[in-house]
């Protein structure tokens, strides 16, 4: 920890070697950060690995066994599931990354009309709870009952194709990819948009001067320079899709298309085998480890090559799209129609019908606001709203601060084991939410941690959510810090500033757009997180999403769930747009 070496080609402001005691004293803050991170992450990961070698319930574990691995990997269905996972995650990631990079470029670097509005609107899909998004699309595209299918069949009927079968079937691998690809765009956009904004345009200018056209500049200069951010986004998106749960659950399982997440779900919920879930989780974990290694080799080890924020002034040049200005805007609105307008429209409709179980869709004359009114009569709704607000703010703030410090250690400090540190940070993502929640229950219900009094409070939910989201936040901050050349920090050190002062007064302001974007992302996800708050919900710490889950899954009042979903979306949209405003104002300052 105390050892920090110069990287190849970096100016010589090396921190001198120190004795262990001095190093510990000097790096106490960093040791504390790493210890906190490992504390949050290692326990769930360790629990998952141990469970994978045991039989029985984690609370009453049975003997150690290899059986979970033998069963998991001797069944042909497992390999079909792995293939499905790769097809699903690979294709949806390609869609997400391609569209997100395009939108980031359009909104950050071009003269596309309404690009500020588009930037804000790109955040809105994040506000929709994933389950409601998938359910809304089922109501649109399910065979026989989907509104779009019914409309298309009627349309085909006019052209003489009577009795045509359903034109679209959402219950398919294509349906899963479509939903996950759409859902993933905002996250990737947030990971790459900051990089586009912070990019030094000197290289592009040089290429143009040498006669390269826009396309050549984009593919030969812009994209390679932004490789850390794009690669980080790609890997994060890929692992997210591998872990993605809602679309595989709602549209994959009815068609018997299993992926890692639904296999883990099936193992824990249907056959109550946490060991088998662990065995699947561990292989997923190893796969994610390989991806982190690739990312390390490709990006972090060559961080200096990607530094585009230097001590020189920079102002990214706006690229004129010419006749493509309005088609580009049109493409964005098509995306927005699919990602927000259609599913939100269905949810809004659903929230207004008296009952969702009728044979056909209720007509507007039957609309009622009673589900919205009922929300305000719900016992404990205000407390749940307050709990949600507290969890959101604390989770987002703690996650991005921790991620920022961790990224700085990973990118700037050439310490042994930083690869492992980055790996663990990323791999927290690989532990299913239910296993994170269970490990937290065991940890904080047993002495000595029981005496902290965290169990049953909002703080335990916040801690568990930090564990869940640190992977995303650290991808964003890794990429951002990689882009900041160390000469700026070194200038501060030469002038006598302490390391923490440099970190907080120089580095943090420079990467603030990325940090703020990560904060918004974590906050928006914390507001609507289901599985962890549900498992950790006691009498006093219910959140709005737990109430929404109960409406949907337990009480089966789908219109009421839709009403709460619509209000949550509204709140998250306002939060994200306000956050966007802060980013813009800060950046322009």
């Amino acid at each position, binding site marked *: 920890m105390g050892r920090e070496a110069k990287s190849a080609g970096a100016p010589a402001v090396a921190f001198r070697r120190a004795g262990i005691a001095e190093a510990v004293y000097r790096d106490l803050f960093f040791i504390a950060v790493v210890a906190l991170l490992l504390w949050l992450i290692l326990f769930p990961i360790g629990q998952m690995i141990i469970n994978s070698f045991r*039989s*029985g*319930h*984690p*609370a*009453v574990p049975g003997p150690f066994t290899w*059986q*979970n691995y033998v*069963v*998991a990997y001797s*069944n042909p*269905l*497992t390999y079909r599931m792995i293939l499905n996972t790769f097809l699903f995650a690979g294709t949806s990631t390609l869609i997400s990354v391609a569209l997100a990079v395009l939108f980031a470029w359009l909104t950050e670097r071009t003269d596309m009309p309404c690009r500020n509005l588009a930037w804000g609107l790109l955040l809105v899909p994040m506000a929709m709870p994933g389950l409601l998004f998938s359910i809304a699309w089922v109501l649109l595209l*399910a*065979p*026989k*009952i989907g509104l779009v299918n019914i409309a298309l069949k009627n349309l085909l009927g006019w052209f003489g194709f009577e009795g045509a079968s359903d034109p679209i079937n959402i*219950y398919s691998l294509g349906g899963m990819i479509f939903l996950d690809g759409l859902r993933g765009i905002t996250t990737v956009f947030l990971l790459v948009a900051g990089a586009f904004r912070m990019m030094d345009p000197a290289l592009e200018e040089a290429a143009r001067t040498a006669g390269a056209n826009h396309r050549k500049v984009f593919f030969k200069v812009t994209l390679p320079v932004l490789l850390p951010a794009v690669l980080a986004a790609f890997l994060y998106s890929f692992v997210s899709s591998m872990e993605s749960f809602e679309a595989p*659950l709602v549209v994959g*399982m*009815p*068609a*018997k298309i299993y992926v890692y997440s639904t*296999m883990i779900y*099936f193992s824990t*919920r*249907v*056959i*109550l*085998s946490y*060991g*088998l879930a662990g065995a699947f989780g561990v292989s997923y974990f190893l796969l994610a480890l390989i991806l982190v290694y690739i990312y390390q080799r490709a990006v972090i080890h060559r961080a200096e090559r990607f530094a585009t924020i230097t001590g020189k002034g920079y102002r990214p040049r706006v690229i004129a799209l010419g006749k493509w200005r309005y088609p580009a805007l049109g493409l964005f609105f098509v995306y927005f129609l699919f990602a927000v307008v259609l599913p939100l429209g269905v949810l809004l409709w659903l929230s207004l019908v008296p009952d*969702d*179980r*009728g*044979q056909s869709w209720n007509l507007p004359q039957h609309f009622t606001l009673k589900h919205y009114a009922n929300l305000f009569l719900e016992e404990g709704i205000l407390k749940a709203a307050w709990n949600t607000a507290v969890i959101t703010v604390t989770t987002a703030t703690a996650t991005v601060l921790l991620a920022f410090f961790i990224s700085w250690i990973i990118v700037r400090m050439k310490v042994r084991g930083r690869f492992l540190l980055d790996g663990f940070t990323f791999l927290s993502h690989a532990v299913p939410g*239910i296993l994170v929640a*269970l490990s937290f*229950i*065991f940890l904080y*219900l*047993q002495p000595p941690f*029981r005496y902290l009094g965290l*169990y049953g409070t909002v703080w335990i939910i916040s801690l568990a959510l930090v564990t869940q989201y640190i992977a995303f936040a650290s991808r964003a901050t890794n990429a951002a810090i990689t882009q900041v050349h160390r000469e700026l920090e070194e200038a501060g050190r030469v002038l006598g500033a302490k390391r923490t002062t440099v970190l907080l007064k120089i580095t943090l302001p420079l990467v603030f757009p990325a940090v703020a974007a990560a904060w918004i992302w974590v906050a928006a996800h914390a507001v609507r997180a289901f*599985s962890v708050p*549900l*498992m*950790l*919900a006691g*009498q006093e710490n219910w959140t709005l999403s737990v109430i929404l889950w*109960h409406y949907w*899954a*337990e*009480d*089966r009042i*789908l219109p009421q769930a839709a009403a709460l979903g619509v209000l949550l979306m509204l709140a998250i949209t306002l939060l994200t747009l306000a956050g966007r405003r802060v980013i813009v104002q800060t950046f322009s300052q």
Partner: protein
Amino acid sequence: MRAPAKNPVLLAYLVAAIAAFLESAPANGLTLDEVAARAKNEGQVRLGIASRKEISGRPVATRIFEVFQKRYPFIKIHYQRVSGFGQRERIFSEMVAGIVNYDALSLSTRQIDDGIKANLFLPVDWRSLGVDPASVHPKNFGVTYRMEPYGISYNTDMIKPAEGQKLTWEDCAHPKWKGKVAIIDRPRHLEVLYQDNAWGRDKTLAYAKRLAANNPVVERSRDEAFTKLLKGAYPMLCGDRSQGVLQEKAFGAKNVDIAFPEPVPIVHVTFMFVPKAAKFPHAGMLWIAWALSEEGQKVHDETEFTGNPLMPSSAVYHRIRGKKVPAISWDLLTRSDDILREILTAMGFPIVQ
């Protein structure tokens, strides 16, 4: 060391220890009246049950408590709805860690074995409290709480009632309905049919294979599947619970009904018990004994159709009367996870045996 008889202090200590032990097993042979008297001293009970407070504006738990308190007005009820996998797993883990917030609690029948391993259940002589012996755990750890006949629910717009009522379990695996029927990812009815007094193991596993080969839509949630059935996404849902269908019909659903093919599997949904560390154990026992009494079952059936289907007071009794109903064994309940795994393996899932 002196013999206890010659050591009055040791003797007194032993007597006190035996008295404390007897007190810790409060219902060893106690009658219902004696339990009620002790419950009166306790004055309250903390319930964790699956009943909703109300459904579509109609009182359910509220009405059940009203009837209970008419008989036992001296017991104040603190109620929390306990349902769903996540909540039950949390409560189970809390209890293992020593946090017990209930005096009468219903968990899944699948948690019985782990609960016994973790020493969570207070043994109670339930038979002396008038509970039907068939419902009582062989070691008195608790009772089965909700029993529901399973059948085939169908959309009456797509299958005429005359035809629907003749549906058999074989229809679900028949090529005529290939890709057109839905099942739930945990086919609980097959667990019951697996018993020797129904189909037995071999026939059930062979059927499970044929059912899976018939390409059914596998739904994760029964309620979601039922909503799709009502909307016409598929004509029938094989292995559906009667309570949900009867409730929806009572609340106005017109295009659905349920057939009960033979043998009619009756599934024991939850297990109710008094936790070992209950604060008001007698009140917990009193609640459970009352809930399983004829009066308790009647009001459960009136409010949420969860009364004992073998009691004439239940709505479903008349639908299954005279049909072959295999009695459920405790052996099945304690082995239900293993049986489910065998069935799901036959259907092609990777399962730990």
